[in-house]
C-alpha cells in the first residue's frame, strides 16, 4: 500500500550495540508524527525515573506527514527527551528548522530514535538507506559551524549536517543542536547527545515523498501564499504604510518589516531593496520578513547580506549579517539567527554598551558576537534566562559572593565595562567548557537556585521572568494574551513557544477587527483589549485550549508555530479573516484521507494529554506529587505583584489577579477534561482520546482522579 505524506520508516540506532534497524511509522499513526511519536516512544520505552544522561535515556527526533511535502513553513522537526534541568525532570521537546528535516524525509525516514551510549565520539551518517555510525573523534571539541562544514565537505555537498557544540559534549544542561545558519533545537538536547558521545548526524536523501493529491496540494499552497500568509509571525499588515495596504501597524513596528527603501546593503552587487509586497504577489513574499530591521532598526540594513530560513518557507525570518566591526576583535563577522541569540546578548553587559561605528549599533554588534558564540558552542539560553540570571546575580552582588576570588579576578570585567564583544564570547566559553563556578549558570535556573541556595523567592523577581517555579520563563504570556496566555505558559516543562495569540495581538491589525474574527470562533469576551483586561470567562478558556492543543499539532505535523495557524489574512477581500481549516485541507491533499478541523483537534488533544500524563507521572516520581495544579501549574508571584500602582483589570496594566487565575485554571481544566482539583486528565477524557492505557497507568500509580 502506498503511504502518502509519511516517508514510512522510523530509524532506530543504538549507540551501545551499534545496532541500526528500521520500523514501520504507521504503528504510530494515531500520534501523527513529531512530538506525537516522541511522547509515545518515551512513554513506552524510557522509564520516567531514568536520568536523562543515562544509557537508557533516548532522543526521539521526528517529523510529521506535512514536512517535506512542500507545505509552506513546514521545514521543521521535533526532538523529544527527558529534561535534565526542570522541576520534575519530565518530558520536553526541542524544535529545529533549517533544511535537514526535508533531507531526512527524502532519505525515507519520519524519525530517528537515538538510544544507548557510544564509548567514543561518533556521528550518524544517513545516505538514503545506507546508515552507519562513523568516527567523530576529529570533530569532538569543535564548534558547530566548523563541525557542520567539515561533515558536509567530508561526505559531499548534497549532505546536510546537524551537530552539538562543546556545551553539549561537556554535558551542560543548557545546550542545543545546530544546523544550517544557526537553526537550533534547544531544551538541553545537546547534552543528551553529548552523554551518548554523538556529535550529530548527516543526511542525504535522494528519494521522493509521495502525496495523494499533488494538484490539490499545489492549489492549497498557492491559495495560502496568495490569500492567507502574512509576514514573520504571520503579522497580517505591514509595519509601515504600503500603497496597496489599507492598514499598517499604528506603532510603525511589527514583524512584516520589509518596506521600500529598506533592504540588504551587503548583498552581492549591492543594495537589494525589499520594496512593497502586495497581497497575491508570490514573488515578493520573501521580502516581507525583515527581522533585522525589527530587531535592530535601520542600522541592520547596513550589515545585511540577505535573509534565510527553513525549507519550504516563504517567510525568511533569519537576518543574515556580515558585521565588520567584529573583525577588529578577531571575531567571526558572519552571523545569522532569528530568535534570542540575535536580540538578547546585551544582558551580559549590565553596565551598558557603547556604540562602535554608527550611532545605535552597539546592540547589533554585541548580539552578533553573542549569537555566533552561543550557536558555535551549542549553548542554549532558555529563552534568555541564562542572560537574566547572569545580569541579576552580577548586579545584586551575589555572583561575586559565589565565585572564588581567583576565578572572579580571572574574568575580563574590563571588557564588560568597555562593551567589548569579546566579553560575551569569554563567558559563553566558560559556561560551555564548565570552567569554574560561573559555569553553574549552565545548570539552568531551577538547579542553579538549588546549587547556590538562592531560595524560592528568586523566582518571584520580575526581571527574571520565570513564569512558574519550575525553571523556565514566560514566552508571550499574560502581557500579550491575558489569562489565556498565562494558562498555556504554565502547561509545559519548558518555555511554552505558543504563538497563536501573540501573532494576532501584535499584528498591528485594528483591535476591533481581530476581536470580531476571533470571537466568532470562541465566543464573546475571548479577546481582551491590550493592557485592559477583564476577569476570566469561558470564551477565554476555549481560546487558551485552542492555542495549547494547536501548538502540539504544529509540532506533530510538523509546522512552524511562529507562522501557523492562519488566523488572520492580509487580504481586504477576505475581511482579513484567515482560514483555520487550512491544516485539515493540507492533511487531506497530502494523505488522501478526508481530514476535518475536528480530526486535527482530536489528535492534537490526544498528544496534549500524553504530555500531561507523562508530566503527572514524572512529578509523582521526582517530587512525590499527586497534584499538578498545586505542584506544576504554579505561577510566580511577580505576575500578580508587578506594577503595584495598578489594580488588576485596570486600563494600562497586564498584571494578573490571584483569585481570578484560580478561576481561570478551573475553567481551563474543565475545557480540557481534567480533574479541577489536581489538573490531571480523567479516565473519561483519556478513553475518549484512545489513551485508556494511560488511565490504567495513572490508576496503578494512584494518580487517576476519582
Amino acid at each position: 500500500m502506498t503511504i502518502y505524506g509519511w516517508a514510512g520508516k522510523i530509524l532506530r540506532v543504538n549507540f551501545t550495540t551499534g545496532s541500526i534497524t528500521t520500523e514501520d511509522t504507521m504503528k504510530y499513526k494515531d500520534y501523527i508524527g513529531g512530538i506525537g511519536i516522541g511522547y509515545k516512544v518515551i512513554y513506552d520505552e524510557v522509564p520516567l525515573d531514568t536520568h536523562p544522561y543515562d544509557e537508557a535515556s533516548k532522543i526521539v527526533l521526528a517529523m510529521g506527514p506535512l514536512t517535506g511535502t512542500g507545505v509552506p513553513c513546514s521545514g521543521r522537526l521535533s526532538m523529544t527527551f527527558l529534561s535534565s534541568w526542570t522541576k520534575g525532570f519530565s518530558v520536553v521537546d526541542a524544535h529545529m528548522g533549517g533544511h535537514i528535516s526535508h533531507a531526512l524525509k527524502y532519505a525515507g525516514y519520519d524519525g530517528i530514535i537515538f538510544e544507548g551510549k557510544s564509548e567514543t565520539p561518533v556521528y550518524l551518517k544517513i545516505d538514503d538507506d545506507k546508515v552507519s555510525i562513523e568516527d567523530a573523534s576529529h570533530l569532538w571539541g569543535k564548534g558547530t559551524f566548523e563541525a557542520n562544514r567539515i561533515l558536509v565537505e567530508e561526505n559531499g555537498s548534497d549532505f546536510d549536517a546537524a551537530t552539538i557544540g562543546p556545551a553539549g559534549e561537556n554535558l551542560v544542561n543548557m545546550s542545543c543542536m545546530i544546523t544550517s545558519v544557526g537553526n537550533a533545537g534547544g531544551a538541553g538536547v545537546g547534552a543528551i547527545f553529548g552523554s551518548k558521545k554523538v556529535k550529530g548526524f548527516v543526511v542525504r536523501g535522494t528519494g521522493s515523498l509521495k502525496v495523494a493529491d499533488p494538484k490539490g496540494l499545489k492549489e492549497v499552497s498557492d491559495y495560502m501564499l496568495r490569500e492567507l500568509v502574512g509576514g514573520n509571525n504571520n503579522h497580517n499588515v505591514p509595519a509601515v504604510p504600503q500603497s496597496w495596504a489599507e492598514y499598517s501597524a499604528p506603532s510603525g513596528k511589527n514583524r512584516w518589516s520589509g518596506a521600500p527603501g529598506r533592504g540588504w546593503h551587503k548583498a552581492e552587487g549591492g543594495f537589494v531593496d525589499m520594496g512593497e509586497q502586495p497581497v497575491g504577489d508570490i514573488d515578493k513574499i520573501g521580502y516581507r520578513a525583515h527581522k533585522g530591521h525589527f530587531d535592530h532598526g535601520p542600522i541592520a540594513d547596513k550589515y545585511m547580506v540577505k535573509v534565510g530560513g527553513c525549507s519550504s518557507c516563504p517567510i525568511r525570518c533569519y537576518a543574515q549579517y556580515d558585521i565588520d566591526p567584529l573583525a577588529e576583535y578577531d571575531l567571526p563577522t558572519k552571523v545569522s539567527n532569528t530568535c534570542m541569540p540575535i536580540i538578547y546578548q546585551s544582558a551580559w553587559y549590565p553596565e551598558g554598551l557603547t556604540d562602535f561605528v554608527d550611532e545605535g549599533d552597539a546592540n547589533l554588534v554585541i548580539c552578533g558576537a553573542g549569537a555566533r558564540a552561543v550557536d558555535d558552542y551549542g549553548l542554549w539560553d532558555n529563552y534568555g534566562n541564562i542572560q537574566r540570571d547572569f545580569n541579576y546575580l552580577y548586579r545584586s552582588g551575589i555572583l561575586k559572593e559565589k565565585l572564588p576570588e581567583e576565578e572572579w579576578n580571572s574574568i575580563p570585567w574590563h571588557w564588560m565595562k568597555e562593551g567589548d564583544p569579546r566579553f560575551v564570547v569569554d563567558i559563553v566559553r566558560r559556561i560551555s567548557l564548565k570552567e569554574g563556578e560561573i559555569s553553574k549558570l549552565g545548570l539552568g535556573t531551577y538547579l542553579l537556585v538549588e546549587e547556590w541556595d538562592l531560595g524560592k523567592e528568586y523566582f518571584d523577581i520580575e526581571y527574571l521572568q520565570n513564569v512558574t517555579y519550575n525553571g523556565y520563563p514566560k514566552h508571550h504570556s499574560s502581557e500579550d494574551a491575558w489569562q489565556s496566555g498565562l494558562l498555556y505558559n504554565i502547561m509545559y516543562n519548558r518555555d511554552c513557544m505558543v504563538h497563536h495569540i501573540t501573532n494576532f495581538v501584535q499584528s498591528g491589525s485594528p483591535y476591533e477587527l481581530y476581536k470580531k474574527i476571533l470571537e466568532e470562533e470562541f465566543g464573546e469576551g475571548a479577546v481582551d483589549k491590550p493592557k485592559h483586561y477583564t476577569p476570566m470567562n469561558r470564551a477565554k478558556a476555549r481560546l487558551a485550549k485552542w492555542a495549547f492543543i494547536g501548538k502540539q499539532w504544529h509540532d506533530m505535523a510538523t509546522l512552524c508555530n511562529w507562522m501557523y495557524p492562519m488566523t488572520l489574512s492580509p487580504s481586504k477581500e477576505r475581511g482579513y479573516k484567515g482560514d483555520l481549516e487550512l491544516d485539515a485541507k493540507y492533511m487531506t491533499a497530502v494523505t488522501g484521507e478526508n481530514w476535518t478541523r475536528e480530526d486535527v483537534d482530536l489528535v492534537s488533544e490526544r498528544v496534549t494529554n500524553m504530555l500531561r500524563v507523562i508530566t503527572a507521572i514524572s512529578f509523582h516520581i521526582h517530587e512525590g506529587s499527586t497534584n499538578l495544579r498545586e505542584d506544576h501549574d504554579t505561577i510566580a508571584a511577580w505576575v500578580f505583584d508587578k506594577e503595584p500602582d495598578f489594580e488588576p483589570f485596570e486600563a494600562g496594566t497586564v498584571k494578573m489577579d490571584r483569585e481570578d487565575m484560580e478561576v481561570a485554571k478551573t475553567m481551563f481544566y474543565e475545557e480540557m477534561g481534567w480533574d479541577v482539583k489536581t489538573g490531571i486528565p480523567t479516565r473519561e477524557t483519556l478513553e475518549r482520546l484512545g489513551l485508556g492505557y494511560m488511565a490504567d497507568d495513572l490508576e496503578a500509580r494512584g494518580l487517576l482522579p476519582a
Partner: protein
Amino acid sequence: MSEVKKENKIDKLLNQEMTRRKFMKISGKSLAGLTVSASLLSLFGCTQEQVDSGAVSLWTTPTGLLVVNQAKCTGCQRCEINCTVVNDGMVSSHTSRVKITRNLMSNNGHGTYQDDWVYYPDTCRQCDVPACGEACPKEAIYADDKGVKHVDEAKCVGCGACVEACPWHMPTIHPETRKSTKCILCGACAEGCVTGALSIVPWDAVTAAAQPTRKN
C-alpha cells in the same frame, strides 16, 4: 580599447530591437561588464550593480529569457518543491529539474556552511543543440514546435546518458520511475520563487522593453 568596443556593441544590442537570436549571443555568459538599459533592468528585476558583480545570469529559452539573480536567492527550496510536485506528482530535491539544494550547503567554497551564503538555483539552459538529446541512444529527447525539449517517456530507458552528457548534470534519472527528469520549461519554479531570484521574462516583454520608445 577592444573591451570598450565590445561593451558598446552589446549595449547597443541590448537597447535595440531584441530578438531571441540576438540574445543568444550573450546567453549563458555573466552579464558583468555590460551596461543594461533601465527598462530591461526593471524587467529582469535586477540592478546594474548586480549585473556588474556577476550575480545575474541570463539564459535564452524558447519561451523567454530565464533570469537567475543569486543575490536574491534565499535558499527556501520552493523552486524544487514546485518543480517536482507539478511534474512528478511527488516531492523531492534530487529529481528536481531546477537544483538549489546541491548548491545550498557547500558549493566550491561557497554556501551555507562556507559562511558566505552564496547559492543559486541551477537551471536547464534549454540548449539549441542539447548535449542531453544528442547523447540519448533512444532519441527520447525531442523538441516541440516551440523548441522546448521534452523527454518521451515511452522511449526513455533511464540509462543516464543525458545526465552524463549535460555539462551541468541537470537531468536526473528518477530513482522510482527510471525516467529522465529533464526540464520542460513549465515555469513552476519561477512562478513560485518567493523573492523573484528566478524569473522567466517572455520574449514579447523583452522585445517591448528593448524597443526605443517614441518619446526617446
